[in-house]
């Protein structure tokens, strides 16, 4: 059993879409969970529907949505203070060293992050790579397990089946609550979550099938 889980993603809402079910499951087992959130999603395109945010008010809005989501999931939150869309331009080693310092304080047994090069958004790929580098730099005897999440369309073709598939249907309500905390992100897929009750059965079943399972690869450090 895990003793402490740290989730490292760059944007407010990555945790809710990506790992909220797993986070809720760990919490239900009494395991502390900390979310290290890289940015405040300052450069997001979604401004609410109908729009209520603008480029300058978005960071504060997304910050309060992030806090709300973390409250719903009952997880600790640390904001890393990077700027949206810039993480790949930061010094990789510097970010990794900083994350290593935080991980050495928390001493997690499991770290969840994005799978570098298979996570679509440049921030996902860069923070995932820095997180994995942070763990790699740790004493091998102290290293937590790393679960890397791939989300690109082709990831299973290249990487094979995920090592960990967590059925989070039991916690789907919690996951939905976390997702819906991110109100400014209302659009596209997110809009469907908001109207889940109004969707036809087929579409509803597809969403639950898609988001009712969370998939991760266990990172192999000796490869």
């Amino acid at each position, binding site marked *: 059993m895990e003793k402490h889980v740290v989730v490292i993603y760059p944007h407010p809402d990555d945790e809710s879409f990506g790992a909220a079910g797993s986070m809720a499951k760990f919490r239900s087992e009494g395991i502390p969970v900390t979310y290290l959130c890289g940015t405040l999603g300052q*450069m997001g*395109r*979604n*401004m*609410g*529907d*109908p*729009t209520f945010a*603008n*480029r*300058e*008010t978005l*960071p504060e809005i997304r910050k309060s949505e992030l806090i709300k989501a973390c409250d719903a999931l009952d997880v600790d939150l640390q904001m890393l203070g990077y*700027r949206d*869309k810039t993480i790949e331009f930061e010094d990789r080693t510097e970010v990794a060293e900083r994350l290593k310092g935080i991980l050495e304080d928390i001493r997690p047994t499991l770290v969840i992050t994005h799978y570098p090069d298979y996570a*679509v*958004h*440049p*921030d996902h790929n860069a923070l995932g790579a820095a997180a994995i580098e942070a763990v790699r730099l740790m004493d091998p005897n102290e290293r937590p397990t790393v679960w890397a999440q791939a989300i*690109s*369309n082709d990831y299973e073709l290249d990487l094979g089946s995920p090592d960990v598939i967590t059925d989070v249907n039991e916690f789907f309500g919690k996951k939905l609550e976390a997702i819906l905390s991110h109100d400014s992100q209302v*659009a*596209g897929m997110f809009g469907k979550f908001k109207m889940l009750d109004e969707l036809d059965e087929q579409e509803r079943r597809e969403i639950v099938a898609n988001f009712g399972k969370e998939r991760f690869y266990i990172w192999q450090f000796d490869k």
Partner: protein
Amino acid sequence: MKPIEINHIQGLLDEYVNKEVYIHLETTNGAYASHFDDKAYNVGAYIRNAKVIYEQAKIVGDGKSYRIGLKTRIGWVYAEGLTDWTIHKEQLLLAGHDREGRLMVALEISENPFHN
């Protein structure tokens, strides 16, 4: 934000003429464009807190969306597709949104640097 009213915005742009101002200029179709549609390209650019002095400003448009050109001593600042505006903390924010309300383009002008 409110829909752009051309004469009002022209007046606001004129207030900054020959003053040192900070510009945020951005365009994007999102980091997921080619993830959701493999025929699409991800494009985007932004510059935040570029310090400029413009000598002339003009807003032009057809009532639906607008273009703004700012003429500086040695160049231009240009944005197309602007639909909405607001004043936020004495900063002039202009943006263009798509049907789903997503931001596609932004031009912002301020006498003080934008929060980084």
